[in-house]
């Protein structure tokens, strides 16, 4: 078994009186993708935010490359440098051009020179076919282009792990494909990823492991084939049936 990039054990998280995540334990080996599926409100997004230390947890341990990042003595800013995150609503900085969005973190966090950062950003943009948009502002791009820029922005610090939070949920079906292709390319290059998604077809293509989240617990997990084609749990079957009827399988 190769080393786990991410290892979570017995994670628990609540908001006030509401229990959002309970007894979450997963291992994400290097170069693999773990996909979380489940209804809205099942805790997918909260889990990703917990991994990135954007949300404090109630209990449990999160390890990145074997190092416990939930240790109180750890500086969260340094942990987040090693973890890229892409959001459902892109969250690009509207007052900065595409290029400025991408070079911000390398310059401020890693201390790269502007030339260095620009070189790196331009080679990333070129790789994903967006070089001609470098000097555009986000509001001039289509949703799919914005999301691809957001992915590039999260790659600029060469993260160990990429968290993708329903990154196609606010895109129309035509634009979804270009974003999913980008993610497939990253997977092929060996990026380790944790995803939350409603795109079951995509989950099948990209996932090494699929976890079905129900009311804050991992109800069922396994290979994409096991979970998406031959689910054992009745609630997983029902969820997949509903997704199927909505036409997204």
């Amino acid at each position, binding site marked *: 078994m190769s080393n786990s990039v991410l290892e979570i054990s017995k994670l628990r998280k609540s908001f006030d009186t509401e229990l959002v995540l309970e007894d979450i334990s997963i291992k994400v080996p290097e170069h693999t993708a773990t996909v979380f599926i489940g209804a809205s409100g099942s805790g997918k997004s909260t889990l990703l935010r917990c991994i990135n230390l954007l949300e404090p947890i109630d209990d449990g341990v999160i390890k990145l490359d074997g190092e416990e990042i939930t240790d109180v003595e750890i500086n969260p*800013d340094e942990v987040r440098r090693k973890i890229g995150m892409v959001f459902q609503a892109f969250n690009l900085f509207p*007052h900065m051009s595409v290029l400025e969005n991408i070079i911000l973190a390398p310059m401020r966090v890693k201390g790269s020179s502007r030339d260095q950062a620009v070189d790196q950003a331009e080679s990333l943009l070129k790789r994903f076919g967006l070089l001609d948009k470098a000097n555009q502002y986000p509001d001039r791009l289509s949703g799919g282009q914005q999301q691809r820029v957001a992915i590039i922005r999260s790659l600029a610090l060469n993260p160990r792990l990429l968290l993708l939070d329903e990154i196609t949920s606010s895109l129309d079906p035509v634009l979804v494909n270009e974003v999913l292709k980008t993610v497939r390319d990253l997977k092929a290059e060996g990026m380790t990823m944790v995803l939350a998604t409603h795109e079951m077809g995509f989950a099948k293509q990209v996932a090494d492991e699929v976890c079905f989240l129900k009311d804050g617990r991992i109800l069922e997990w396994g290979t994409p084939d096991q979970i998406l084609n031959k689910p054992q749990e009745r609630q997983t079957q029902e969820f997949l049936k509903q997704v199927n009827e909505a036409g997204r399988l």
Partner: protein
Amino acid sequence: MKNEASRGDSASQFNGENSQSKYDFGGKWQPSELELARRAARAKRNKRSAIIAALSSFFVLGGLAVIAVTSPGWKLLSDTFFKWAYGVEVLPKILLGFITNITLTTIATICVAFFGLSIALVRTSKAPALTPFRILATVYVDVFRGIPMLLVILLVGFGVPALQIQGLTNNVLILGLTAVIITYTAYVAEVIRSGILSIHPSQRAAARSLGLNYVQTMRHVILPQAFRRVTPPLLNDLVALIKDTGLVSILGVTDAVRAAQIASSRSFNYTPYVMAAIVFLLITIPLTRFTDRTLRKSIEQQNAQGLA
């Protein structure tokens, strides 16, 4: 910013990409008969509207002017308030006083911007070490936003010299300036704070997830957006500040208002006040127009972002 001019038509930009190869938009399209007829009808209607507006304005405004000028009190009124020869005579003194207003405004603006931003940052920060400052800032803003500025001017302008503390100035100009700064810092701190709070938390989350720390997130992500959003209300406060510098005349500072008061009390004629008013308007009206334009642009920009 660089693309300011091209921001306006972002909606039309999206459609272009895929369709350009298929349709030739540049080419030989001629408006149809129907469209030409529509255009002619529209032009005719617009012309009629313009004529109606002009006639209506002429009769209503002209009528009001005639009523005013022919009324029995008009002579007395114009002698009291609009004696232009006298007005021109006292104008240099008023302008000299107005330099004081401008100076006060300039210094106050710089100080208020600095202190206002500091207080807004203290109030929005969650750092435990800043807790006492946060409490002080809250009390300060509550107090000075809630009392008339005239009261602050009187308290500082007459109260501070009464303390007879050595080393503290008795210069009414400086004391008046201090009172203005104290009051406007409270206003501006609240405007900036509301701007900071209006930036969606997802922007902060995105910045923090990139590894930026609190200060970097504020400086590079939150504040630039917040300032863009609060520029119109801040410009409003600037217009108000220019006017309110006239209040320090109560301490005996010879500003435009005070100069007009002196000239007026010497002649029992109120034209100097009107002249002072005109001098203020020459600055404030263009600035108000500029503010309106900035506000319109800022709304357009936010709407464009909403689309995406």
